[in-house]
């Protein structure tokens, strides 16, 4: 069960990393026209899952860094909606952008709430100490 949780957690971290990479790629049209967003997502999520095999706890620090990086790049480039188009191109054709936005932000919010809960002293098993 713990391994499943870690796999999902680090896969989500990989997803955040992939979104950041896709946002950076979008600044160069030559790269953007050649690199498919779904490929970046597949590689990063795969790396996240592999990384989870070598970890015993979910790294709160890693998650917060990746999340902050993603939002900072979004704000710098003023490309908030590209997050959702990146996700849609990951085999989610036919699902509306608004639905993808709601689901993604809900998951992100839930994980943040779990981390806040954890950091406030209600130690959840599976999460690392914030260090």
């Amino acid at each position, binding site marked *: *069960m*713990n391994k*499943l*949780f870690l796999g*999902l957690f680090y896969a989500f971290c990989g997803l955040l990393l992939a979104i950041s990479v896709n946002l950076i790629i*979008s600044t160069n*049209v*030559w790269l*953007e*026209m050649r690199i*498919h*967003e*779904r490929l970046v997502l597949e590689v990063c999520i795969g790396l996240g899952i592999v990384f989870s095999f070598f970890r015993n706890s979910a790294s709160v620090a890693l998650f917060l860094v990746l999340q902050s990086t993603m939002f900072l790049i979004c704000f710098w480039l003023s*490309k908030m*909606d*590209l997050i959702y*188009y990146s996700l849609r*191109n990951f085999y989610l*054709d*036919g*699902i*509306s*952008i*608004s*639905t993808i936005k*709601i*689901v993604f932000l*809900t*998951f992100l919010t*839930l994980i943040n709430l*779990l981390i806040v809960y954890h950091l406030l002293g209600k130690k*959840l*098993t*599976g999460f690392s100490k914030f260090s």
Partner: protein
Amino acid sequence: MKKTLAFLAIVALFFSACQKKDTTSTTQNVSVNGVSLSAPMKVDKENKTITILAAVNGKYLTENTRHAVVFKDGKFGDKPVFRAFQNQNDFLQAMLEIGGVAGNNMTKANGETTYVEGQKIALRVTWNGAPKSYDINEVISDSNNKLIDLRFGGNEKNAKELNTGCITCLDSCSVGIISNHAYTYGAVEKRGEVIFHGNAAILPKDGTLVAITYKLINE
């Protein structure tokens, strides 16, 4: 841990149940200017027009692209302003059937120095609820304000072999069936001469089905 996982699983199930239905299933029977998902191409030999069904790709209403219309299942199916439901190979055959004269003058080697030739094409876009049928120059903006000059390039062999899905490119192209005589290959991606994107002020929202009509122009 089990509680955390169970909680996340319940939330995931809740949202998957709440998701809007796949637009392709809900719009299966919707017809736009005579084309639909079950019949995505209409050929009118008498008027020398071909109409195909496509969906607006909201991403390229703000982002730069060199692809106007690409078959959704082609290699570049996620890169155009309009994602077509009709494949490029059948489209090319239909162009030949209505009497289109292909230029076939583009190769990978000469792309950056050659302008696409072939019969001139007028492209118009409309959708259900649109006030009129729009010319391509109204729905796709060129940062240099040059008019998009579409030509039937042909490129049958490359289109089949490379399977990019390209139906209409925004610079001269050795793969796309139809491309823009106004720029040579590389103007968008390599040399940054121009920025193209869909006109968000006119086009409907992401995912809206549109009918794209190509008409041969006899000069």
